[in-house]
């Protein structure tokens, strides 16, 4: 074969091999999970009843955030339970490594189920392989016994990890989406961050006059631009609109708020506010061009600062702003943000030291650990007050401010996770919209058609929010 490496043939072989693996994986007849008699006597210092000598087995996904922050939480654990031996593994490919252990009934006590090839949580829940985190959430927090762990978390994070009302997953990192810009560049030109889309367009015209491109985006992956677009839809139409879209209600994408927002974004193409060539740039290329000051705004999640650390010039001072409101008639306040958890932690129900696993998570959510995560991983953890009193980089500081200002108005869409084909239709259509090849009206029609197809397809499992 002239075309070597991943050929169709090799690929098919691989594809077809999966059932063998799956069969092996499922054929073992895993014992029905029982609640292990792990919990020892509880006390104020040991509310979860950790047995003093039980070893703790921790598996952490060692990705962009590293795993030093987890080791820090382990050191807190050792302080409280000095007799317990801790086994730490910082790995990649968590799913592959953990699947055999789950099946054999010998899972670790805590898993950071993150990164490419993570375990499929929905199937784990369906097979009753996970421990409910209810006990942890109702336990007193590590710093203040009067406050429950649940109340130290940012809003929405418990619900996001719940299946049928039972919390099985705890996301540790908190990602916020918005529009990024250089605050020093803004100061130099005397610009102010726009609160509404009309102001955004006016500012864009002004930026163009200054010889810069107002916007760029990660053109190779047009979904980056959907984050501000969909956030603006949520602001204009309110949470009812978000629910209508996620629930695949007929005509949800034809709502006036969607139409108006899509037309607003089409203006970017119409006015030539997007940097030339953006549509073919990879995320690294676009973000680097932005760091070089060739474009002023770029949409991204809060990982941007860490991702760009090596190429950001000194004094660039990147900050994130909330997506502008469509107009003053918006149903949500301008401070509302799109946000979601990442680094999902799970506790296998068959673990030998489940109490220790819960205790580890409780200590990971202590103020000290959260601060350690924020500084070593340059990201925001799910603890509400994690960033208070810390010396932070400009970007992370602005993320903290954004979260604080948003309060309860943190939203996220569920349809991209539930219905991937619909998400693809939205991505493709937005890419075309931003290049002026698809009109706003056509965008709505295309996306509505895709949503209708998903709704009519009996083979796709439907969810409601």
């Amino acid at each position, binding site marked *: 074969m002239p075309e*070597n490496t991943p050929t*169709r043939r090799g690929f098919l072989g691989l*594809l077809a091999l999966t*059932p063998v693996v799956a069969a092996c994986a*499922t054929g073992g007849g895993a014992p029905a999970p029982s609640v292990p008699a792990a919990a020892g006597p509880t006390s104020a210092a040991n509310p979860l009843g950790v047995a003093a000598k039980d070893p703790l087995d921790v598996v952490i996904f060692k990705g962009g955030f590293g795993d030093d922050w987890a080791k820090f939480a382990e050191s807190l654990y050792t302080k409280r339970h000095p007799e317990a031996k801790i086994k730490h593994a910082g790995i990649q490919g968590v799913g592959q490594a953990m699947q055999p252990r789950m099946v054999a009934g010998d899972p670790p006590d805590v898993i950071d189920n993150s990164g490419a090839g993570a375990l499929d949580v929905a199937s784990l829940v369906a097979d009753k392989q996970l421990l409910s985190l209810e006990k942890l959430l109702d336990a007193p927090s590590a710093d203040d016994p009067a406050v429950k762990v649940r109340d130290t978390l940012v809003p929405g994070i418990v619900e996001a990890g719940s299946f049928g009302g039972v919390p099985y997953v705890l996301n540790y990192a908190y990602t916020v989406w918005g529009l990024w810009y250089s605050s020093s560049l803004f100061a130099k030109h005397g610009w102010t961050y726009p609160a509404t889309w009309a102001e955004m367009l006016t500012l864009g015209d002004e930026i163009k006059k200054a010889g810069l491109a107002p916007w760029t985006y990660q053109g190779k992956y047009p979904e980056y631009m959907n984050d501000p677009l969909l956030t603006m839809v949520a602001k204009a139409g309110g949470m009812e609109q978000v629910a209508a879209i996620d629930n695949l209600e007929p005509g949800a994408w034809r709502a006036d708020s969607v139409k108006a927002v899509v037309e607003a974004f089409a203006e970017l193409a119409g006015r030539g506010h997007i940097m030339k060539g953006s*549509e*073919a740039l990879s995320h690294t*290329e676009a973000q680097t061009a932005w760091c070089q000051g060739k474009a002023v705004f770029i949409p991204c999640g809060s990982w941007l600062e860490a991702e760009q650390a090596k190429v950001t010039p000194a004094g660039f001072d990147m900050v994130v702003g909330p997506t502008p409101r469509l107009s003053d008639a918006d149903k949500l306040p301008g401070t509302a943000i799109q946000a979601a958890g990442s680094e999902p932690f799970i506790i296998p129900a068959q673990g030998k030291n489940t109490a220790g696993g819960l205790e580890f998570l409780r200590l990971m959510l202590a103020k000290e650990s959260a601060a350690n995560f924020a500084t070593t991983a340059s990201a925001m953890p799910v603890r509400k007050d994690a960033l208070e009193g810390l010396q932070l980089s400009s970007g992370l500081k602005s993320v903290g401010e954004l979260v604080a200002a948003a309060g309860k108005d943190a939203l996220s869409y569920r349809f991209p996770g539930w219905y991937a084909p619909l998400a693809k239709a939205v991505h493709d259509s937005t*890419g075309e919209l931003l290049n002026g090849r698809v009109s706003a009206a056509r965008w709505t029609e295309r996306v509505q058609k895709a949503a209708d197809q998903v709704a009519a397809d009996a083979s796709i499992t439907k969810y409601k929010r």
Partner: protein
Amino acid sequence: MRHRRLPFIAGFLVLPLTLYAVLVLSPYAQAFYLALTDWRGVSARAEFVGADNFARLLDDPQVLGALKNNAVMLLVVPIATVVLALFLAAALSLGRRRGAGVYRVVYFFPQLLSVAVVGVLFQFVYTPNSGLLNGVLNLLGIEGRSWLGDPSLALWAVMAVVVWSAVGFYVVLFCAAMESIPREILEAAAIDGASALTRLIRVVLPLVWENVQVAFIYLGMAALDGFAIVQIMTVGPGGPDNATEVLGLTLYRNAFTYGKFGYASALGVALFFLTLALAVLVLRGSRRDRVEMA
């Protein structure tokens, strides 16, 4: 002793054949079975749905779009590669220029790069604002284009890369074939007054026809594939707006993004028969009398 030879040979073949059966044949067989189920790839549960997946294939716009793109690639890539490779091979092996060996190595070079490297490399070549291609065009006073960002250009940009990376292999293949042609035949043709082009088409081509035939089959398969390069290089991938979608990518997305392993297997089975049909057609359609050379 003669009757002992069979078990002796079989003894050697047991291990490789078992491995082949377990690692190659059984997955193939399972793919055929899975194509008839709704398996989602996360548990052992798979329900038999009959030919439902195959019926769906025919009105899936993404599959049809991918099929169209693969068809375009099937028309363009083999012909462009073979014509280019024949031309270069003729220049190298019949022209008797100095340095032909060096050129042969240079042409073969892309073959040494993995598809992933080629994909990343050409993404940089095509990148609109700082890419090599637009840089050269700007020097010549031509305005650069957004090669991978424009739906009307993207597939052609992909095909150019596929041809670029394949042509070297066939240059070497055709060179070897051409060098086994007896010189007297070419000299006789020259004395009879045949021009260089006539000699190439009327004398050389028939003598290397078997190699060309093989080239068409291999390139046909490559054109029906294209998965790796599209996945790595294009917008989306498969875009913009499905302009570079190929069947391999549709299969991959259905299996690993949409969790429809059963449907993806059906797509794989369809692709299998498509490739098989193509190979048979090319072999049948291009059958000629074998020329025996002295």
